[in-house]
């Protein structure tokens, strides 16, 4: 187990307080991230209710099977992240590295599949960004374009958060590889794990809102 031989930073009374402060700080940050995504979800919810039929029809143009596989991949990365946390806490360096690398790999696969989906939408001319032509094979193309704007904004913002998470995970993998100050590594991996799980949770609702509401 990672021990408490490490001295707390100057502003903390003991390591327990420092650990709690780190976790609390990440939770506060995640709530601000919820504000960010919440605004987008709020706007999407409004338009989804206002234009339910067109949005439901537009959702049929998304690749549900591929996104479902992607969702399973992201959920699995959540598992490997938690197992990495546990391994590092138990001072099992190699196992921690395996699970961290698995998490990074699954995250990269997720982004690869997402990029593939976007490429498909680009080929079908359903990508109304950067001045690209938008040709919708159905009625009410202007409203459908709104749907796709939300699709690319939500999935794009989520992908950006994944990318940031992956960079941090790679840094953590290197740090765990070096295995200096195990107590500090435990704290850091736990805090990164919170961020990764949050990105997971956001994707669940992005997936549900964009892909599943097609009935």
């Amino acid at each position: 187990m990672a021990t408490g031989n490490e001295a707390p930073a100057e502003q903390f009374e003991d390591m327990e307080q420092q650990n709690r402060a780190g976790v609390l700080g990440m939770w506060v940050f995640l709530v601000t991230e919820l504000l960010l995504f919440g605004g987008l979800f709020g706007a999407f919810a409004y338009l989804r209710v206002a234009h339910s039929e067109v949005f439901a029809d537009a959702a049929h143009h998304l690749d549900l099977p591929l996104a479902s596989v992607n969702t399973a991949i992201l959920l699995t990365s959540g598992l490997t992240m938690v197992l990495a946390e546990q391994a590092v806490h138990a001072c099992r360096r190699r196992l921690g590295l395996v699970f961290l690398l698995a998490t990074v790999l699954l995250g990269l696969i997720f982004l690869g599949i997402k990029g593939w989906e976007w490429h498909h939408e680009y080929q079908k001319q359903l990508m109304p960004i950067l001045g690209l032509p938008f040709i919708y094979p159905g009625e009410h193309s202007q409203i459908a374009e709104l749907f796709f704007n939300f699709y690319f904004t939500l999935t794009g913002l989520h992908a950006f958060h994944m990318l940031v998470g992956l960079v941090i995970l790679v840094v953590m993998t290197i740090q765990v590889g070096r295995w200096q100050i195990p107590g500090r590594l435990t704290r850091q991996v736990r805090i990164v794990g919170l961020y990764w799980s949050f990105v997971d949770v956001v994707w669940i609702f992005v997936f549900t809102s964009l892909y599943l509401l097609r009935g």
Partner: protein
Amino acid sequence: MHYLTPILVWLGQILLLLATLAATQLTSGSFQYSLNFAIATVIAALTLAIFMRLKPADGVIRLVALSGLLWIGFLLLLTILDLVTR
């Protein structure tokens, strides 16, 4: 290390994912949407409670998480209520 709980939670999440996909295929309309969001909420709750360790967390952390949930709940509820009551 405690493998069992995270693995069981993950299995539960995968099963719930399959359930929500089945709901999308087999049902439609507002019943389907309610089912989809209910399942998404359960998957998210499992992640929050177990993976993010909200269940064993102390009061301050739970308060922060709850405040976030309340905020987004109010945002979505009042936004949609505004629209449907016009």
